[in-house]
């Protein structure tokens, strides 16, 4: 847990790539399948924004290319953005990849750019579950992708998994977990399927996952992953010791980061702000030399402290014992420094616990 406790100033950059070849049925992100002709202009605008922001940045300790499908974009265009940033020595650089687009050459190119972490959207090892999710890759592509990452010498690998897909049995989920573990990743992000309004999944009540089954699946994941040596450090994230994602830790530590591209969020100097949602508007703003910012918020000091507690509650760092009332005692267990963290059952009820958070008395 040394990284969580690390006091050295960290600063992250998130770059949003809003392009996909296909939209998955559960996806509510800012991403489009019909605008790939914009890729060149869009990446050039990202590069220009990176250049403009770079001057005001401290050394960048992590970069995350997320999406969308970042590996739909030629690696050199990601490299152009990277080249503008004042990277700290040993910075963590992650690219989210869709397995059906991964090639050995792509991974070698990433390696050459300094990318040292790949996050693969595996979701499930079971074909009929992938069908329901609207995913198009087959399980062999995952094996080949992992192989390509390793051969390129990219040091860290995360696999994204989704549980709770309609038609997914407990056995299906167990199989997904076992096969993912067999691939030997350093890190696993395990998400419950969340039906967001406006998505094909969210709009069809018959495809809503059942809460009890979701809870069972989460507990199965927790049990299996901890048994083979992964440590949970956030509600949905497990890692081998020392392999936590530094970039994502920033989010839960209320750290500072800059967003690049459309629909990207920034947090600097206690202020949160986000850019316009569509790539067209982003390109237009950058080429006009105006701010792509769409909105912002700045919290009162007390609100900010509550937010810090809400975020910390998600992690294994936990919260001070007096920040929570007794009626959720059974969902908590001791953490380092006399703090309390959520048990596995407690993590499943994190919202219920979070709404009970109050500012602890000053010590």
């Amino acid at each position, binding site marked *: 847990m040394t990284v969580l406790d690390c006091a050295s100033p960290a600063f992250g950059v998130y770059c949003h790539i809003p392009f996909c070849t296909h939209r998955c049925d559960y996806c509510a992100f800012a991403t489009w399948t019909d605008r790939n002709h914009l890729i060149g202009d869009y990446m050039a605008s990202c590069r220009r924004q990176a250049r403009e922001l770079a001057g005001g940045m401290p050394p960048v300790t992590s970069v995350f290319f997320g999406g969308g499908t970042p590996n739909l974009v030629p690696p050199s265009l990601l490299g152009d953005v990277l080249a503008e940033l004042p990277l700290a020595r040993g910075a963590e650089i992650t690219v989210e990849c869709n397995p059906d687009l991964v090639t050995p050459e792509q991974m070698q190119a990433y390696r050459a750019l300094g990318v040292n972490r790949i996050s693969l959207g595996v979701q499930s090892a079971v074909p009929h579950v992938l069908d329901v999710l609207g995913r198009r890759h087959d399980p062999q592509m995952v094996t080949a992708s992992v192989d390509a990452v390793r051969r390129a010498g990219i040091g860290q690998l995360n696999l994204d998994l989704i549980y709770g897909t309609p038609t997914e049995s407990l056995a299906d989920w167990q199989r997904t977990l076992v096969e993912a573990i067999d691939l030997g990743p350093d890190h696993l992000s395990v998400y419950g399927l969340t039906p967001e309004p406006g998505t094909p999944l969210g709009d069809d009540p018959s495809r809503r996952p059942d809460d*009890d089954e979701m809870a069972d699946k989460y507990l199965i994941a927790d049990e299996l992953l901890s048994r083979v040596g992964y440590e949970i450090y956030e509600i*949905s994230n497990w890692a081998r010791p020392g392999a936590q994602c530094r970039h994502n830790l920033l*989010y*839960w530590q209320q750290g500072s980061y800059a967003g690049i591209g459309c629909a990207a969020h920034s947090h600097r100097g206690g202020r949160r702000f986000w850019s316009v949602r569509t790539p067209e508007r982003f390109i237009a703003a950058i080429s006009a030399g105006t701010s792509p910012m769409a909105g912002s918020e700045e919290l009162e000091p007390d609100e900010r402290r509550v937010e810090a507690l809400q*975020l910390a509650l998600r992690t294994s760092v936990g919260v001070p014992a007096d920040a929570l009332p007794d009626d959720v005692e059974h969902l908590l267990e001791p953490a380092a420094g006399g703090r309390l963290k959520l048990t596995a059952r407690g993590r499943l009820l994190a*919202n219920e616990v979070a*709404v009970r958070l109050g500012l602890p008395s000053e010590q």
Partner: protein
Amino acid sequence: MLSVSKPTPQGTVRPAMPHVPPAAAIPIGGAGTGSIRNFSIIAHIDHGKSTLSDRILELTGAVEERSMRAQYLDSMELERERGITIKAQNVRVSWRGHTLHLIDTPGHVDFGYEVSRSLAACEGVVLLVDAAQGIEAQTLANCYLALESDLTIVPVLNKIDLPAAEPDLYASEIERVLGIDSGEVLAISAKTGEGVEALLDAIIERIPPPGGDPHAPLQALIFDSHFDQYRGVVSSVRVVNGRLCAGDRLRFMHAGGLHLSEEVGLRLPAVTPTDALGPGEVGYLIAGIKDVAEARSGETVTSAAAPADAPLAGYDDPKPMVFCGLYPVDGDEYPDLRDALAKLRLNDASVTFEPETSGALGFGFRCGFLGLLHMEIVRERLEREFGLSLIATAPSVAYRVRTDDDQELEVDNPSDLPAAGQIAEIAEPMLTVSVLTPSSYTGAVMDLCQSRRGSMTSMDYLSPERVELRYELPLAEVVTDFFDQLKSRTQGYASLDYDHAGYRAERLVRVDILLNGEPVDAFSAVRHRDGAYPYGKAITAKLAELIPRQLFDVPIQAAIGGRIIARETVKAKRKDVLSKCYGGDITRKRKLLERQKEGKKRMKAIGRVEVPNEAFVSALRLDQ
């Protein structure tokens, strides 16, 4: 029912409606009493009363065209929507040298007392019957009321333009039921206007003019009052004796108040102030009164300087029969609800209310109503006119309880009932119910009445096709959707009238609903022993659906005393988490948690269980 025209047993009171010859020589309010006719229209809902009223207004030139509102007399929004009259209105028109006062009567059994007061202002009634449907139970009841009051009845079959009209059949039904010669029955179409002039002529010919002595001390009957926010209480009055003048000091004989007559006037139907109203005249009175309870239907107004010896007969204080708790959905609106009830009572003195506290629903009021429709109307008015969002508990009746130590209690809230062990006897209010139905639905009506613990007292055929069934039924069984059931089982053809018939001791028990072991007072109900289990089963199942899962298992039980008769469990909640919380999710997640926190504030805590208000609202609505 009350007789309105007979002197009280003391014999000191003047008859309310003396049918003495008109003192034609004396000019009163511009007209002699000989040219005055006061009448009411008795009709079932949808039999065309409002259409006929409109037609009369048009024919007499009172309303030029339909320039005002269609169906002028039904002015209250709710009345227009429901097609019924709640508050009595009156209008004065002229026809062939005569002055006609049309006095509208409330159209629902809940308002029987108000009907009797309206009839007390008349010398005759027009019995309006749909020529395709025949006479209905309540019309019949009001007609009997008119006959008891010695009013002249002008029978009319309406809607003769309809292909389904059978005027001959229903004329002979009227003859058989009311003993009026079928040859006297007029046939009209209020819609086309056919026969309406002849009806107006018949009103003048058949209904006697009012009597009254203009020189006697003033006696004027109030038969309706409503509250106007600018003028205060506006009362509809019928002068019986003496003169009611603007500027006089008046004594209200029952309420005891002294008031200055600020304005008297006529409704033509436009409000038209005048100097005075004389015997037989109908109009309005404004006397600076702020509360309708000071000027209730049945009140007698006299002169403060030269008062009458005694009030007119027939005054009664209608007692609420149906009760429920009304609570604001948002507890902060309690003061608003209190103000709204106080204002509403200015207009409807028959509503009663007193503060009540419920563990489940917080602060509210125990309210009493004349009947179920009255309850619904009051609740709708509170929500609509005062912008409140309310929870109503299941309607209850007032039980009479004798305890083991021989105390007599009247209990209108089931949760106030003493423990079962302390009750020696419990009695419930009964009704005599009359149902008129096409004979093909006899079986369906009998089934319904029997399932509601009814016992039949008589069955009479009005014609081979129509039958009147008379039952004795507990009021409590009638206030829970009896009317809706009757309508649906007879495809809307049956009609209902009822009268109160005292109390009867029964095997009644209180069913309590326990949430995680805590009783939820809002769901306590008194049931016949045989109905207790189905009620317990239904309400626990309903609540199990509506109560969200908590952090622990929540048992929902129905109990009689200490004995559990039904049980459901809401299993503990297991998942309430946002899987993803990255840079772009943080603001959204914080807002979501804020909303969730706000949501908790809107929940009522029953012990440790958090219940959203909506769950109570839904469960209580389903219960009705």
